[in-house]
């Protein structure tokens, strides 16, 4: 305690809600009431407050303007900013993860042919691929003059190395398309530009599916990598964009590959910003902080984005679905009549209308994806609750209890499953729902410890027939399906020599599957993606890939769409907001200085 406080006379002070206290000590000198209330102003104090306020206003304006200007300067090159949902490690094929990474991995790496989800994939790194008269052998001619991002020429050795690595190396998502369906028995470089691939069995879809699916790796980089799954060096491909910089967890900065053989990249710089929370990504799109979002818009947001002045909505067929998968290895779904009854009981058209607001294709059009180039005229999967009740009664399974596992992170699928449960109760079954995260569902399904589960299958499962065959041969998923006729047809599909025969076998398989379904599709969403056309209006929906992929981001022949520079594109920061913030900061600073001065005067 300082000496100043120690000797004071009696003094009455207020003490809130405690009555008054009498203090003993030196009486304070009387001061003007205006001073005590803080209303007294001296000319110098007012000036200080005004100067302080102006200074704060000025500094805030300078800061915000500098920030905005710096951003504008950066955008002077044609830069596109895209929100992506997660960190795909170094964007290399072994660490980027599952097939959801395909569109982004595809910006860096190329395949021999373009996407497998179209009727006729066009050649990319390959010029042509021909099935020889021996039916199991293909001769692939490669494009000349292609270089990797580091300047090394691309040759047949890279193709041989890649397919052998996929086949014999550590398993990744492409392994079984080199080791099983199809089984590439040998891959030989006949010269620098020709590769001969020989399969264990006839492989009529090799060019259209396999060679369009497997990204090619540079041998000179990967041959020195001891463990591909832990390779964290730069991703070097032949693709239209090369990795300039990776900020872990935050963004990828890609630069245009000016030597790209298949067209000019539309942006000089492509920034892939990692925004895991979809709502945050859509807010960033709305405010112009990104030019596109790679994730589809939820159905309920489509109208609001359609009405937005600066945002357009682009349609794409993702080749995904929401489907109910049965455990056919145990009761009650080892019963084929019950599986068919469940299929008939579910009102798939109503699900589409209620859950997706009609945007998509009803599951009643059959399975797999009705718009896949490999799906013919699918027999329908109709809604017939009367027939469902009859089948259940006939199988003596009325009141059968079972549990449906649902991924908790997917509200659309969860909502659809709730409605499905109502349909199933209406025909006398007793289903229950259990929500859990996807890895838990995967473990339970791998062990066969489930009755049924709902999930969203991807293009790889729904539009790639080699993956379909693989799924039926697998330990889980379709592996417990015991329809002998289907199994026989799938085995035949791996022996037929021509694509036409392959399609015919597939078509018969689809018919049998519709009658005895191992899965019941609820719907196939037709997804919409939000983009800002002022920045770039050349976004194209590609089946199975959405809108953010290399086929959007490379100018094809006669393409007019270009990426706007900063002069045309908005930087997402409104001048009004800058003035507002500066104003508020100024007022606050002035208030603070006045208050501080008043307190000092009181003291």
């Amino acid at each position: 305690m300082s000496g100043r406080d120690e000797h004071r006379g009696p003094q009455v002070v207020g003490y809130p809600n405690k009555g008054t206290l009498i203090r003993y000590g030196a009486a304070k000198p009387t001061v003007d009431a205006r001073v005590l209330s803080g209303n007294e102003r001296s000319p110098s104090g007012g000036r200080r407050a005004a100067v302080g306020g102006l200074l704060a206003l000025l500094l805030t304006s300078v800061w915000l303007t500098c920030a905005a200007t710096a951003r504008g300067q950066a955008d002077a090159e044609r830069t596109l900013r895209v929100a992506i949902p997660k960190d795909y490690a170094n964007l290399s094929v072994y660490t980027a993860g599952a097939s959801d990474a395909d569109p982004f991995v595809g910006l860096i790496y190329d395949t021999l042919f373009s996407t497998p989800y179209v009727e006729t994939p066009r050649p990319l790194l390959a010029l042509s691929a021909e099935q020889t008269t021996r039916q199991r052998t293909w001769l692939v001619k490669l494009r000349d003059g292609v270089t990797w991002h580091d300047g090394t020429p691309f040759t047949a050795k890279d193709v041989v190395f890649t397919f052998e690595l996929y086949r014999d190396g550590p398993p990744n998502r492409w392994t079984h398309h080199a080791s099983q369906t199809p089984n590439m028995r040998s891959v030989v470089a006949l010269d620098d530009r020709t590769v001969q691939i020989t399969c264990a069995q006839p492989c009529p879809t090799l060019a259209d599916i396999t060679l369009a699916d497997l990204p090619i790796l540079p041998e000179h980089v990967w041959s020195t990598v001891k463990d591909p799954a832990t390779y964290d060096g730069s991703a070097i491909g032949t693709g239209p964009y090369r990795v300039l910089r990776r900020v872990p967890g935050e963004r990828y900065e890609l630069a245009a590959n000016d030597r790209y053989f298949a067209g000019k990249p539309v942006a000089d710089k492509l920034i892939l910003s990692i925004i895991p929370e979809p709502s945050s990504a859509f807010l960033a799109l709305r405010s112009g902080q990104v030019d596109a979002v790679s994730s589809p818009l939820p159905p309920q947001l489509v109208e609001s984005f359609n009405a937005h002045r600066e945002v357009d909505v682009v349609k794409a067929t993702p080749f995904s679905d929401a489907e109910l998968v049965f455990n056919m290895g145990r009761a009650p779904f080892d019963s084929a009549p019950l599986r068919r009854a469940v299929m008939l009981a579910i009102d798939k058209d109503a699900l589409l209308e209620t859950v997706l607001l009609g945007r998509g294709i009803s599951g009643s059009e059959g399975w797999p994806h009705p718009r896949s180039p490999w799906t013919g005229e699918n027999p329908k999967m109709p809604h017939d609750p009367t027939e469902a009740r009859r089948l259940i009664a006939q199988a003596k399974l009325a009141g059968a209890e079972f549990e449906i596992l649902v991924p908790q992170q997917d509200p659309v699928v969860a909502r659809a499953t709730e409605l499905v449960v109502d349909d199933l109760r209406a025909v006398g079954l007793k289903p229950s729902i259990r929500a859990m995260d996807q890895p838990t569902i995967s473990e339970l399904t791998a062990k066969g410890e489930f009755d049924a589960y709902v999930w969203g299958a991807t293009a790889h499962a729904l539009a790639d027939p080699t993956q379909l065959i693989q799924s039926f041969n697998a330990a889980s998923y379709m592996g417990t399906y015991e329809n002998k006729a289907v199994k026989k047809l799938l085995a035949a599909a791996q022996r037929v020599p021509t694509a036409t025969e392959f399609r015919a076998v597939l078509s018969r398989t689809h018919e049998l599957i519709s009658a005895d379904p191992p899965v019941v599709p609820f719907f196939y969403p037709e997804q919409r993606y939000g983009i800002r056309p002022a920045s770039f209006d050349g976004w194209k929906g590609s089946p199975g890939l959405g809108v953010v992929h290399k086929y959007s981001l490379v100018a094809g022949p006669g393409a007019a769409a270009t990426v706007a520079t900063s002069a045309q594109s908005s930087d997402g920061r409104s001048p009004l907001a800058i003035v507002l913030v500066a104003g508020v900061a100024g007022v606050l600073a002035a208030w603070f200085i006045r208050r501080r001065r008043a307190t000092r005067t009181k003291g």
Partner: protein
Amino acid sequence: MRRQPRRHPVGRRFAQYGLLLGLLVVGSFALPRLAPGDPLTYLVGGNEAAAFTSEERARALAQFGLDAPLHEQFLDYVGGVVSGDLGTSVRYGATVSDVLLDRLPWTLLLVGVAGVLAAALALSAALAGARRRGAGAGDTDLLAGILLLSATPPFFLGMLILAIVSAELGLLPAYGASASGGQTPVVGVLERLAMPLATLTVTTTGVMYLIARSALLCELTQGYVRFARAKGVSEPRILRRHVLRNALLPIVTIFMVSLGDVLGGAVVVETVFSYPGLGTAIYEGVLARDYPLLQGALLMVAVVVVAANAIADGLYTLIDPRVRRAGGVPR
């Protein structure tokens, strides 16, 4: 009479921390593995993982040493912790240490500044409340306001701030942590820090405020306060020079203990604002069942919290001479 040998309090404290760290190593190994699932779904995708044979599954997991029996994995982990090698992340393909060190600075910046700001806010509000105990605007309204904000889920508050400040007003960027596109680095970092910081600060102020207010009010009933008033010492001076000093012990304790909560809150806040800290790494690690990353991250967070408690222990002796004389925290 023979004197009992007295164990040194500092040595005892270190032994306690050593034991705790041992338990943390076990816990950080066991917890991620208690959750069902394995990293294969992330590594190759659901369809593809389902299509794998058991031999392929084992080969895929062997790349990360996850095919070995649990006791072998544990011994590897302990050996790695001792030698500073936390293994390789399944999710990122890089060493766990590299992944965590990339993320740690951002979390320390966010959590550190939020902790200090929350403490400053809580203390200021508690001082104001203690001075005007029972008064509407000065105390009860403040109490209600702070509790309301603190009770707001960080996810909701974060989205609200994001929608207004970033989407509607366009003031601040909605995602990221570092400057991009030629922006001044400091400006970029501050711009991106502002919203997550505000969210985390607001949602963690409440507990600190309650403890601080309670400690201050308790001290205000002490005789020395009455004596000081009787001497005519001004009320602000009593609060700042006498009451606050005596109330510091519980306040420091709650501040250090709250660090764990703040780190927990950071997981949600970092996800909402796409802030690339430890929180998002843990979230992504959980989704991918990335055991090496999860065990490394959990261990690191636990060590930070234990270190904060150790610092609090040390601070007690500086704050309160009685603790120093008693050789430890009074019980």
